[in-house]
């Protein structure tokens, strides 16, 4: 089923490790070069940014081509269904050809063609069902779309090993209950079951295969399923997203408080497992989920948010990071239980440099001028001021 052999997949992962080890000074350059030559495969890969650009332009081609066909043909569901199905087949065939002829691996082009074919197929089936008159309600349309996209995403993952396609399939399957006429609690429970099932399966597979291929893929999927599980259960998660609807959906009280408990239990369990197994993907997800829990705790309890809440969160994060770093560094050989705060790989430095450069984007929002009319200053004779900004309010 897999388009690439397990040996090639493992070699590619080893190439990345050798590169990391060489940059960290754990291997000499000549050793790295010798090992890279030994690990060479026939597969062609490119830089991540060029991969993204190639994916972008491939998406432009597919989108423009499909739209071109749409404006050229009569607007009829049957012809649209057939056209989309043909384009979907064409995309898969082209992806297969590019992999076979050029040995493309994570090159952007074949990825977009494969994933695009899934979406095209989903819309094709939707129009096909509409044309047969089987069902034309928007809810049935969405259900069918999610079903086909989910199955297709899984197939793409199985064929090309694209983990994000599997994540998309998982999310699609979990969104299915939200298309059905069920209560919020039941919808969320079913989504939780879907994410939970994926988590259980991928966790078992990861424990079986370890950190080497394909265990690393299951590791990422396990972390994604854990995040999905949490997001399905946290009723206040949209409160932290600006412009998103805030407030919990109408659910029974017992369900509300169960989900509150879950928002604490899931990050705790994720962090516990991640620390025990030194699982980086789950550790990252566990940290992010724990932060989400801290941020949504007040809305859950119905408490008023205060302006100093972010400051308290900041103090907790800063204090926690410094204390943890000191505790780890004070252990024998600067580590405790194998955890070290020291940087081992240069990749960490690259990520922090990229983060620092990218921070221009969010610091740019800090330069708004102060309001023109300011309340009077208490340095200027009295604490009561204009504009309603007196000391008493």
């Amino acid at each position, binding site marked *: 089923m897999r388009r690439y052999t397990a040996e090639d997949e493992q070699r590619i992962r080893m190439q990345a490790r050798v590169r990391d080890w060489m940059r960290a000074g754990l291997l000499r350059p000549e050793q790295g070069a010798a090992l890279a030559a030994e690990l060479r495969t026939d597969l062609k890969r490119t830089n991540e940014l*060029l991969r993204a650009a190639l994916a972008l332009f491939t998406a432009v081609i597919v989108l423009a081509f499909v739209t071109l066909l749409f404006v050229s043909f009569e607007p009829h569901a049957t012809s649209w269904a057939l056209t989309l199905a043909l384009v979907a087949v064409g995309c898969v065939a082209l992806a297969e050809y590019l992999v076979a002829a050029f040995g493309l691996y994570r090159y952007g082009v074949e990825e977009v063609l494969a994933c695009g074919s899934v979406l095209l197929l989903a819309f094709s089936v939707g129009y096909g069902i509409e044309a047969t008159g089987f069902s034309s309600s928007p809810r049935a349309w969405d259900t069918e779309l999610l079903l086909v996209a989910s199955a297709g995403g899984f197939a793409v993952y199985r064929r090309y090993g694209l983990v994000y396609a599997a994540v998309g399939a998982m999310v699609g399957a979990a969104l299915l209950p939200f298309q059905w006429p069920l209560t919020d609690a039941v919808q969320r429970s079913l989504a939780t079951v879907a994410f939970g099932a994926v988590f259980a399966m991928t966790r078992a597979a990861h424990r079986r295969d370890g950190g080497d291929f394909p265990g690393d893929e299951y590791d990422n999927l396990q972390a994604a399923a854990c995040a999905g599980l949490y997001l399905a259960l946290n009723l206040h998660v949209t409160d932290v997203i600006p412009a998103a609807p805030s407030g919990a959906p109408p659910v029974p009280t017992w369900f509300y408080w169960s989900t509150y408990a879950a928002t604490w239990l899931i990050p705790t369990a994720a962090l516990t497992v991640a620390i025990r197994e030194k699982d980086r993907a789950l550790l990252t997800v566990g940290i992010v989920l724990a932060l989400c829990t801290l941020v949504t705790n007040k809305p859950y309890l119905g408490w008023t948010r205060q302006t*100093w809440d972010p400051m308290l969160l900041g103090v907790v994060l800063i204090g926690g990071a*410094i204390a943890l770093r000191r505790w780890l560094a004070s252990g024998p050989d600067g580590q405790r239980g194998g955890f070290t705060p020291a940087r081992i790989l240069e990749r960490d430095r690259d990520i922090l440099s990229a983060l620092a450069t990218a*921070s221009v984007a969010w610091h740019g929002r800090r330069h708004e001028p102060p309001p023109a009319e300011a309340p009077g200053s208490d340095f200027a004779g009295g604490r009561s001021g204009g504009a309603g900004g007196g000391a008493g309010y």
Partner: protein
Amino acid sequence: MTTAQYLEAWRSAGVITDDQCAALSALARKDRFSVHLELNALLYAGVLAFAAGLGWTVREHFANLGDAVIVFALCALVAGSLSYCLERAAPYSTAQVPSATFAFDYVLLLGCLAFAVALWYIEFRFQLLRERWDSYLLASAGLYLALAYRFDNRFVLSLGLSTLAGWFGVRFSPEGFFTGAMRNVALGYGILVAAVGVWMHRLCVKAHFLETYFHVAANAMLFALASGVFGGDSPRLWLLGLLVAAAAAIEWGIHVLRFAFVVYGVVYAYVGVSREVVRHIYLPTLELGYFVVSGVAAVVGLFVMSRRVGREE
């Protein structure tokens, strides 16, 4: 083969030494597991959260807290941060200097963000400069850039560059960029940032900052030029400028193997050229046909280039 099997095979073949095999096996088995990145991320998130809460609290509760308390607290925070950095910093060097302590970079960033809140508050309450309030931006940008160079801090460098952009009047929003005045300002800002970056690089003063300068300058200039193609008085002139700038970005990116600049050049140039071509096409089918053909050309071009210089294998 697993990682352990590969390492053992390489050790047996004499490609790596026993010590190297042991060290690498320990890493592969996660006997030694670095949480350096996670700790830094927590610290950075903590500083941003604290600074955001500080600004929000000052804005909302100044009347209850009083000016003296707020100004004193903010000044104490800034002074404390700076004295921490000055006490622990290594002597100034024009070369790259590692952080003195784990929290060093973030303490300086916190001090700078608190300084920004303090300036905002002083102008908000006392209105010393009124319509010339943006002088604060210029002064604080100068301070941040000086601190970034003194303490070798890229976070503060980025803060300084974004504050300088604020003084120029550049806002990173599409609405702003598509007006004439903002376009020229952004272009000027981009040219200045690139020039300063090159100048400092030539002087060998913190040469590793060059890439940060170029990222900011490239986006500001290319965005401004592309917006000129969309809404400028002489679109073809703007397009010409865009193509020249994009070519320079691509050439430099290929030269130093920094593919982000190649992507900037290709994407911005594609957007500009497409806008100019589509302006003269009146049939939707031809317009879509253009995107198919030009998309294929872009993919083929990028593919050929990636095979020559962007190989990962």
